[in-house]
């Protein structure tokens, strides 16, 4: 708790710097990542983040120490080479994009690991710091380095904001963009540069192995919540910043703990929650609305049974008779009885169960919809009368009053359904 307060009250200026840096980094990478996610280029980000390792090691070897300028330049160049190679190979070979990207990823990362091992054997005392590039260590970044990473992040954010319209066009409809004379190739080039930069700025804090997660996961999680690009960008940025700060906090509390894996854990939790909870597209809301629908279906069936009994001149059904109607849905029937009585649609007395006036009207509507739909199927879709019941069983719970009015109109307010049974209407309508 003490650590928590110490960290989040920003008493330590170096923590303030790190949090500020990681915030910019989170926004920048989520911003770029959202576009590459929408462009269905998520894998490319992963390839680039692995591919920066050899350049990073070479930069270190050249500088002889952990000079961020050398490391960033080296990493950028090797990321650029990987990006160029993947698009060049795609152009001149018939290999599929995913196999090209997978090969580039593993080849570059393999070479990088070889370089790293050689450097480790060299006995350079500075080498200890290099390991943090694999899984990242946000808390260990020096303030001067932060200035470089933060500045680059800010550049990414600014360029993307400036090019928002162009990138939107590049992702949604590049052919149209080209047709109206936009330099789509150039725009894509700038985007690729931003993408490589977004990877490079994250290597120290998050690490090369997991940087792709910070690019793609925020957008993937945010996509569950919104259909608007602006909201998507803001949400992705928010998710990314929250996870990045929490990951940094863990690195702060537990010494030697890498930041990257924790950022990924927090990000994945957000993504999982989004997948479960997001309205409409989330798993649980969909499950619940299905459940609600099934409950309503059971209630409708009970009302229908009572209405049909009434048509056969039996106002009251005993509880035993009702239970006997649905031997496989005992629990549901009890529940429906309870709810409908509470809603005032059913009246229960010692003789049994009957429909209230409002209940009669509601039940009549369900039966009416059922028979109207049967007639519609029979007359307009030419389906035989003995084949229309199943579909009507479903549609009676779904049809809206507007569709009901349209059905009545199309069928010209019919009196009988295909089974020659009366279609029931209220006295004042009939």
């Amino acid at each position, binding site marked *: 708790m003490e650590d928590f307060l110490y960290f989040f009250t920003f008493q330590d200026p170096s923590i303030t710097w790190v949090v500020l840096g990681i915030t910019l980094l989170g926004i920048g990478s989520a911003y770029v990542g959202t576009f590459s996610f*929408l462009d269905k280029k998520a894998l490319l980000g992963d390839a680039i983040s692995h591919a920066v390792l050899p350049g990073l090691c070479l930069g270190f070897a050249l500088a002889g120490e952990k000079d961020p300028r050398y490391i960033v330049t080296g990493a950028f160049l090797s990321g650029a080479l990987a990006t160029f190679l993947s698009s060049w190979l795609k152009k001149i070979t018939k290999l599929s994009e995913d196999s090209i990207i997978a090969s580039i990823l593993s080849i570059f990362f393999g070479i990088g690991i070889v370089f790293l091992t050689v450097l480790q054997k060299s006995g350079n005392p500075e080498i200890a710091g290099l390991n943090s590039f694999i899984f990242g260590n946000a808390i260990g970044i020096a303030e001067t380095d932060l200035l470089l990473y933060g500045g680059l992040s800010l550049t990414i954010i600014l360029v993307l904001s400036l090019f*928002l*319209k*162009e990138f939107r066009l590049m992702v*949604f*409809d590049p052919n149209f963009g080209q*047709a*109206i004379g*936009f330099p789509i190739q150039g725009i894509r080039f700038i985007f690729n540069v931003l993408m490589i930069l977004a990877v490079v700025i994250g290597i120290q804090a998050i690490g090369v192995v997991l940087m792709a997660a910070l690019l793609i996961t925020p957008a993937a999680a945010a996509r569950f919540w919104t*259909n608007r690009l602006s909201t998507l960008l803001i949400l992705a940025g928010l998710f990314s910043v929250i996870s990045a700060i929490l990951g940094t906090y863990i690195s702060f509390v537990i010494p030697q703990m890498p930041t990257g894996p924790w950022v990924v854990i927090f990000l994945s939790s957000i993504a999982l929650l989004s997948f479960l909870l997001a309205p409409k597209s989330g798993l649980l809301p969909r499950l619940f609305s299905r459940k609600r629908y099934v409950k309503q279906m059971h209630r409708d069936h009970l009302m229908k049974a009572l209405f049909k009994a009434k048509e056969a001149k039996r106002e009251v059904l005993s509880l035993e008779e009702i239970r006997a109607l649905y031997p496989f849905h005992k629990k549901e029937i009890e529940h429906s009885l309870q709810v409908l009585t509470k809603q005032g649609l059913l009246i229960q007395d010692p003789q049994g169960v009957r429909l209230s006036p409002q209940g009669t009207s509601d039940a009549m509507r369900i039966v009416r919809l059922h028979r109207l739909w049967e007639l519609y199927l029979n007359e307009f879709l030419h389906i035989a009368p003995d084949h229309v019941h199943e579909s009507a069983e479903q549609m009676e719970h779904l049809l809206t009053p507007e569709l009901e009015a349209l059905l009545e109109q199309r069928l010209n307010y019919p009196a009988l359904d295909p089974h020659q049974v009366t279609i029931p209407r209220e006295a004042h309508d009939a």
Partner: protein
Amino acid sequence: MITQVSHPVLEVHDLTVSYEQHPVLWNVDLSLPAGKLIGILGPNGAGKSTLIKSIMGLITPTSGYVKIFDKALPEVRSRISYVPQRESVDWNFPASVLDVVVMGTYGKLGLFRRPGKKEMQVAQDALEQVGMTPFASRQISELSGGQQQRVFIARALAQQADLYLMDEPFAGVDMATETAIFQLLQDMAAAGKSVLVVHHDIHSAMNFFDWVIMLNLHLVASGPKEQVMTEELLRKTYGGKLNLLTQVTDLIRKQDFNPLQR
């Protein structure tokens, strides 16, 4: 039966196009009059879309050239409007109907400038012309095929061009919408715009177009509807590919390089 015109709005000169080593258009040479509603007819794989894309500069031809308003494409780009095939984009992209239609104003806006009030108004007007005003803030993923098509046409209208190139704007569109869109295109032609439409239905082509181009890897016909919509030319267009041409295509594909490419 190829009718050439003087002062054409569009001139295609000896255009040959191949994808990698697969020739898809052979020596297309035609010129089109202004202010007409023009249909491009032909069977699947006849090169209809390829012709439109080559005119739009999206594909580099192996030989030949295109002149629009007697100029090269880059000089007159702002006067041309293009409707790609509906399936060419991902309709799950997070955007509203208005967002997409506003893209039609990007060409005149140029790089960096954001669409403002004026552009929004142009987009709204275009939406009204295709009867999609009530859908302006709807997400494009929620549209039906016909509605998506109308959004694309609205985007083209927002370009406020003189020549319109439309790739299959009637694919997946119901009869009522098709008639409404044709009516709109005829009005545009009457107002002096030239409209070039890739189309597949001979019956409606008969009713609506002023001028018809028939393609089947090569140019079969180009001329006023009354003159080219004959049984003989239709049979030439739809009655299978020329056997010799197919064999030559196969021959070229078997080479290790593309002999048509200079």
